[in-house]
């Protein structure tokens, strides 16, 4: 394998041509050379004009004035301006009314009714095993004493997910049917997803005030992009042959859309729904910062009295909701196109009617026997034992373990040996060299377009006047991503080899991925102290599952023939891994790197809450002090960092997308 690759790489250009032709065969070298030429001209000019070091003051724009004015205008006119009276006010009312409607309906069903509905829906879409899980999950929510908050969160989720799906479908339709709209839409969707949720909580709060309307709208902004993206993808990927046939039958545009394109895209649509639900749930806790109520609020309140046990009691229902909703929609997606099974009575509409009847019966019986709200006596208090366990763990791991040292020592070493040099290195680099490095990285693995986007994003950070803070954040992101990748690849290699390990890992990864980060903030601080190290730890916990999953899948997906071949040639298992599996799984590994970066960046704000400083702190500060200028500028800088890192780490997917 390796020799064959090397051979193709060293094939020289056709004889008799000059060095330019040779360069054409080695595009990377050509790109680097032309970049060097540009740099040789531009750098001395820039250096003479603005100097090296940090971003020059002459090239920054101070937005605090205008943003402050916007802030004041909104507060001054919120109660009287027609824009608020006739537009935002009605949106706000509509959200409140719909959430209230769903909430009252859930309460009216009672705990028995809700549990039955959940179990029966899960049974119809995914079979009896998941039905058991769903039923049990709702009972656990009640047992933990979280029934009412769970219903509040569920009501909020139902409305937010419905709104996201409608908005996503509309955007996706527009993008799927028109190439131009798609091109305009893509950067918008990118931005909506990379923008840290905290950054737009602030404008949303300014306009709608704290409470449910703002929370729902912030959730929609965050959760609609995957739906839009996947809808567009599904519509664009419709089989050309089928479309041709439908057109030749004389179908109108609308008929073609409704009878062919949308049904063909069902799988993508369901995947979009699945993603939207997961994103919306992950906002449940963040939205509690602006008074959304429900489970998120319980987690947040427990946090303020440093009560990990209580936070966990409210966090578990979020995890359970996520697991149940994820598995149900996933199963529904898998079932599409397969033949119905089971006895005839239970198929199709008749099965659903039966399920509805059963649910109604349970609800009525439940109302008459148990009442609407979970009984006070049926609550298991887990907060005490959890806190004891956490205290024990902290007492024994914090410091003074022989040889390996305690977690506090690791944190200190990580900060002073890795984070500090990295930060001073990045902050010490002249600003133009950072731009050059970004350009070189993005261009070598992508096109000149991706390189340009990356460089412009980086320059925007400078222009916004937060260069130093952004370099600080960047150093934290790089360090956390490195740790995530080392751990993630290690675990994934193990999981790819042993099905049993993979099975054991799956629920653990689920919990890591869906547990609200607020829950593990306190344990993380208790173990690693205040600062950038606990922030990095929280980021690793959050990003690890995705990296492990993608890498495992990539390594597993390697062509068995190639593995067999290597084995028969007598390769040791280490050689197989290094020389066959890893090279062949390259696309998956790159995707894992990219996801690692994006997810770590998503925790930057949470890091601000445990002392990571830099951009994360600024965004949290903006929200706490109602300071639109600070919060929004820092948020914009995080978006730019995200865009840059995405472009620098993920060229292949983009190229493939262009080809398709």
């Amino acid at each position, binding site marked *: 394998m390796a020799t064959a690759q090397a051979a193709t790489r060293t094939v020289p250009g056709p004889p008799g041509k000059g060095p330019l032709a040779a360069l054409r065969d080695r595009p990377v070298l050509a790109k680097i050379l032309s970049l060097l030429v540009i740099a040789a001209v531009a750098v001395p000019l820039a250096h003479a004009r603005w100097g090296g070091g940090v971003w020059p003051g002459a090239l920054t724009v101070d937005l605090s004035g205008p943003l402050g004015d916007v802030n004041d205008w909104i507060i001054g006119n919120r109660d009287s301006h027609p824009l608020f009276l006739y537009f935002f006010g009605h949106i706000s009312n509509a959200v409140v009314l719909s959430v209230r409607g769903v909430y009252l309906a859930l309460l009216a069903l009672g705990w028995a009714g809700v549990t039955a509905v959940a179990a029966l829906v899960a049974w119809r879409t995914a079979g009896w095993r998941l039905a058991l899980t769903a039923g049990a999950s709702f009972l656990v929510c009640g047992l933990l004493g979280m029934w009412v908050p769970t219903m*509040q969160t569920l009501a909020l989720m139902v409305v937010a997910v419905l709104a996201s799906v409608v908005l996503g479908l509309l955007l996706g339709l527009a993008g799927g049917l028109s190439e131009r709209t798609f091109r305009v839409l893509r950067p918008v969707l990118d931005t909506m997803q990379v923008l840290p949720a905290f950054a737009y909580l602030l404008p949303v709060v*300014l306009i709608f005030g704290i409470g449910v309307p703002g929370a729902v709208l912030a959730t929609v902004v965050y959760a609609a992009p995957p739906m839009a993206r996947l809808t567009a993808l599904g519509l664009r990927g419709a089989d050309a042959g089928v479309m041709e046939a439908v057109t030749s039958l004389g179908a109108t545009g609308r008929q073609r859309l409704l009878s062919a394109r949308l049904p063909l895209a069902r799988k993508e649509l369901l995947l979009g729904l699945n993603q939207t639900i997961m994103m919306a749930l992950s906002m449940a806790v963040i939205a509690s910062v602006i008074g959304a109520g429900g489970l998120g609020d319980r987690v*947040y309140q427990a946090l*303020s009295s440093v009560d990990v046990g209580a936070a966990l009691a409210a966090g578990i229902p979020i995890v359970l909701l996520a697991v149940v909703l994820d598995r149900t929609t996933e199963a529904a997606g898998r079932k599409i196109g397969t033949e119905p099974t089971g006895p005839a009575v239970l198929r199709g509409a008749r099965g659903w009617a039966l399920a509805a009847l059963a649910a109604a019966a349970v609800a009525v019986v439940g109302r008459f026997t148990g009442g609407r709200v979970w009984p006070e006596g049926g609550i298991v208090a887990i907060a005490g034992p959890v806190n004891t366990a956490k205290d024990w763990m902290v007492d024994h791991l914090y*410091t003074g373990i022989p040889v390996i040292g305690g977690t506090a020592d690791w944190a200190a070493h990580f900060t*002073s040996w890795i984070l500090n040099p990295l930060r001073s290195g990045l902050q010490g680099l002249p600003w133009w060299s950072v731009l050059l490095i970004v350009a070189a990285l993005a261009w070598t693995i992508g096109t000149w377009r991706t390189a340009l986007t990356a460089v412009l994003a980086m320059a925007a950070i400078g222009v916004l006047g937060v260069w130093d803070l952004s370099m600080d954040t960047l150093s934290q992101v790089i360090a956390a991503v490195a740790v995530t990748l080392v751990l993630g690849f290690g675990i994934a290699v193990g999981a790819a080899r042993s099905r049993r390990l993979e099975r054991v890992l799956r629920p653990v990864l689920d919990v890591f991925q869906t547990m609200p980060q607020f829950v593990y903030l306190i344990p993380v*601080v208790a173990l690693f102290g*205040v600062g950038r190290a606990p922030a990095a730890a929280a980021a690793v916990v959050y990003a690890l599952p995705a990296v492990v999953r993608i890498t495992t899948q990539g390594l597993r997906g390697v062509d068995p023939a190639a593995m067999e071949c290597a084995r028969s040639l007598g390769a040791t298992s280490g050689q197989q891994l290094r020389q066959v599996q890893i090279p062949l799984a390259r696309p998956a590994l790159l995707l894992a790197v990219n996801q690692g970066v994006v997810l770590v960046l998503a925790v930057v704000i949470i890091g601000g809450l445990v002392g990571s400083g830099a951009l994360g*702190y600024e965004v949290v500060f903006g929200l706490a002090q109602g300071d639109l200028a600070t919060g929004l500028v820092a948020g914009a800088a995080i978006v730019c960092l995200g865009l840059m890192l995405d472009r620098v780490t993920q060229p292949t997917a983009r190229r493939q997308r262009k080809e398709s």
Partner: protein
Amino acid sequence: MARTRTRARLRTSAIVASAGALLAVTGCGAADMTKQASPFAAPADIKTVTLSVQSWVGAQANVAVAQKILEDELGYRVDLVQTDEVPAWDALSQGRVDAMLEDWGHPDQEKLYVKDKKTIVSGGDLGVTGHIGWYVPKYWADEHPDVTNWKNLDRYADELRTAESGDKGQLMDGSPSYVTNDKALVKNLGLDYKVVFAGSEAAQITQMQQFAKEKKPFLSYWYQPQWLFNEVPMVEVKLPEYSDACAAKAPADIDCAYPTTPLQKYLNADFSKRGGDAAAFLKKFHWSEKDQNEVSEMIASERLSPDEAAGRWIEKHPGTWKKWLDR
């Protein structure tokens, strides 16, 4: 022709109908942004009060006791909304929240909402006096009594070094929602310290508890009244004396201690007028630091639920709270 026209008509009527439905649902005409309750508030004909809770435990204690009395004695249903102070002012003016029981002094907001817009009214003193300062643990101050004066702080900078503060001493600050001049103070007093922001009160408390467990020295921005003093006794470091002239300087030039603030209650103006028993009660709510700490300690240290903690306090101190109900 005819078919397309019917279809067009159908479509228009559908649009008109849905627009009409939206208006009918949301109420015709203007929507008042200042009158929107929470969707989770109790169903009709139950009296409700919405209180804002801030992230520190003292604020939770006020609210827990007020909630319990409102519910048990006056028959209200109480909704809680957790927010930082500045957003809480915003919410008060919009009527999303009826009252805030502990404000640490926000002159800008006071001027805008109380004096100019008149959407918020003062609810009087809480009875608790707040004070912000720099604190060191008692076990450390006992060994080095001179550490309690800012002039000697530089001598101890080495002992307070952490990975985060580099070659300087660490002065730990808390949540971004707190009023702080610490960066200016360190600069203007020429101290060899670096301000490290814990980012949230929870993180700060956890770190202090951890230091205390190991009897390690630390220097932290902290405030009174606070339950943590009962668990980790701390001594205040003397800063240059507070004066109004110094407080009036630009934020970057401040070089004196923090003031002592009688904590204030604020009510939504409309609620204050029409809030009936609840508004009258909240205006009279007035207790001491000792009372507040007693409840806070039960919540944060003994890990009782706020409701239980308030219940115990109410049982023990009928003389205090019965007065708040007198008309």
